[in-house]
């Protein structure tokens, strides 16, 4: 077997494992990224969407934020204009969170219709302009 063939075998192994890792990575860690409306549609069609880890991107409904510092509980509602979901989050919200930001809520929708968030990311308003950061 010449060196070129051996190298080709090695290359196929590397490319193959990168491909395999990518496919399995997507399968194991991929999460739906939905708007509240899309979430409502999915749930209506397929109730198994309850209790599935996902991300929901939406606006915080102004005036719905209640923060209990002592128990570190944050409650608010999110909407995309039509569907609306209440969210409960335990922990420290990001600095940029307030009642008029766009958020990405990571968590699960339970049968009680509440999204239990494990993570809340807030997009800062227009003023935090993109400065490429690493």
């Amino acid at each position: 077997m010449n060196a070129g063939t051996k190298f080709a075998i090695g290359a196929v192994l590397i490319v193959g494992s990168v491909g395999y890792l990518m496919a399995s990575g997507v399968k194991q860690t991929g999460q739906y990224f939905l708007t509240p409306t899309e979430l409502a549609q999915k749930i209506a069609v397929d109730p198994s969407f309850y209790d599935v880890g996902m991300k929901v991107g939406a606006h915080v409904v102004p005036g719905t934020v209640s923060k209990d510092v002592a128990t570190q509980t944050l409650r608010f509602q999110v909407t995309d204009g039509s569907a609306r979901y209440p969210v409960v989050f335990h922990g420290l919200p990001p600095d940029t969170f307030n009642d008029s930001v766009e958020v990405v809520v990571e968590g699960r929708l339970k049968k009680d219709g509440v999204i239990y968030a494990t993570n809340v990311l807030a997009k800062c308003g227009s003023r935090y302009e993109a400065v490429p950061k690493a």
Partner: protein
Amino acid sequence: MGRHAVFALCGALLVAVVSLEWALFQHDFNVEYVAAYTSRNLPIFYTWSALYAGQKGSLLFWATVLSVFGSLALVLTPRHHRELLPYVAGVVSLVAAFFISVMLFGGANPFQRLPYTPLDGSGLNPQLQNPGMVFHPPMLYLGYISITIPFAFAIAALLSKRLDTDWLVAIRKWTLLSWLFLSIGICLGMWWAYVELGWGGYWAWDPVENASLLPWLTMTAFLHSVMIQEKRGMLKKWNLALIIGSWLLSIFGTFITRSGVISSVHSFTQSNVGYFFLFFLVAAAAASFSLYVTRLPLLMAETRLESIVSREASFLFNNLLFVGIAFSVLWGTLFPILSELVVGTKITVGPPFFNQLNIPLGLALLALTGIGPLIAWRRASIPNLQRQFAVPTTVGVFTALILLVAGMRDFYALMAIALGGFVVGTVVQEFARGARARHRQYGEGYALALGRLLARNRRRYGGYIVHTGMVILFVAFAGMAFKTETEASLRPGESASIKSPYGWTYRLTHLGISQYDALNRQVTAATLEVSRDGKRLGVLTTEKRQHVDGLGRPTFQPSSEVGIRSDLREDLYVVLGGVVNGTEQAVFRFTINPLVWWVWYGGMIVALGGLIVMWPGGAPAAKRAQAGYAVRLVGTEENT
């Protein structure tokens, strides 16, 4: 002619930058950009850096730096590459023209005036008011922009059909420069994210972060594979593709950052600038790759791979891994868009995806970091392998054993540190052998021999220093496997404890809250007393800052100022979450981040190594070093 056009462009853009800085320092709030990013009470340091705080200013900065680099390339390129220069001037001018037209026609003119003059500007986002933010964006930009020069040379070589190995020499240093800026920019960004954003880490696989990593990966691959082309005349197509790809990725990075097509915590600009970039990216990719394809017949390899156990082969695998990592990071970054296009639903992948992929691939790369420099060119013999690998392998195995005995059970972390030991073993062995050879040959003392070894073979030994820095980074990354975190709500006098992975326990006692006004902000500071296993270590302060405008009205969201107690083993990282209204009861998040200090330290060593490799030397000396390099690389078996 072409040269003078680039010089004139450079002069005109420098005047524009000086004018914008002048407007910033004069607080000319009639200029929309000045009003949007600065205010009267903004510290002068940040007023200066507001030049690139916003999109419009960054575009101006981009075009200006490109014209400066372009001019330098035209002036500094040695005489025998002169035939390429008209093409280089053309490519640089085209790219600059794109950025300038975005400014002029894409609604991104930084000199846009307002119909009225506000009394004060709205100030700079507090998260950008950090020393890291003053240096991080320009470093990253310098990295992104300077790739244009090697790209321009690559296109010049393709257009002029002067595709000998010669042109590579002209661009190697530019690629290295770009790589160095990008490395420094990425490290500064990690530092900024760590001390400023308060989430307790330095890398989140955010699309914008990934975008800066992509060209870094492909350039690192190029810096390795270019050696194969120089020495063996192989990989010509591959190297050209890497340079073109790196440049496209840098434009892609700018596009991702500017367009907000991928939801990122860091980037959303509601402007149509993104479309300009997308169009430019597609057009540039189509043009450069079709040119590339027409020239493929001129890019035949001069030699073939002789053995799989050779330096060439190990570099080929190293390149495949770099490009594989780059591809998977690109894939993960674009996955939400791709999945929406293909199946109609957005599916995102987060840090677990990137870690799952890149930890094993990164470890394989780390292993090759040690293996590559030890294997002979062309074909390694068994005695050569034994001679080269005995010591480093022993070091690696002993490192693993010591960690196992010490109780470390995390497989990846163990592998990272053991492979790190192996690589450091190879580097020390190389330095020791080189110094001993000089000692014997010239009778130099060992210290002098080491110094001269490094000075006379900058490229090789500087490269080893970069490898050492990378090892330190990998070990530091492995430390994060042992991160621990806890949250507590404390009244003054109460305390919380957190156990360190090293076995000791920190006790943090809340001493109280103080509030005061500073230059442009109202500060709420919480002070904690820190003790470790009963021994008092000192106090730590963490703040919430509410920035205010000139009239004392609040601007922006409150921001956290993290309290960090850092030593070589671990960081104690304290964030003030909030204070219960009207009381001194406060919520804290305590995090122990092992080995973080080594990230900064490793980054500095990587940069130092890069500088050594790049450091200009006299041409004859460089020739000599090159010859010595080739001979020593092949060891005792053969001379090339």
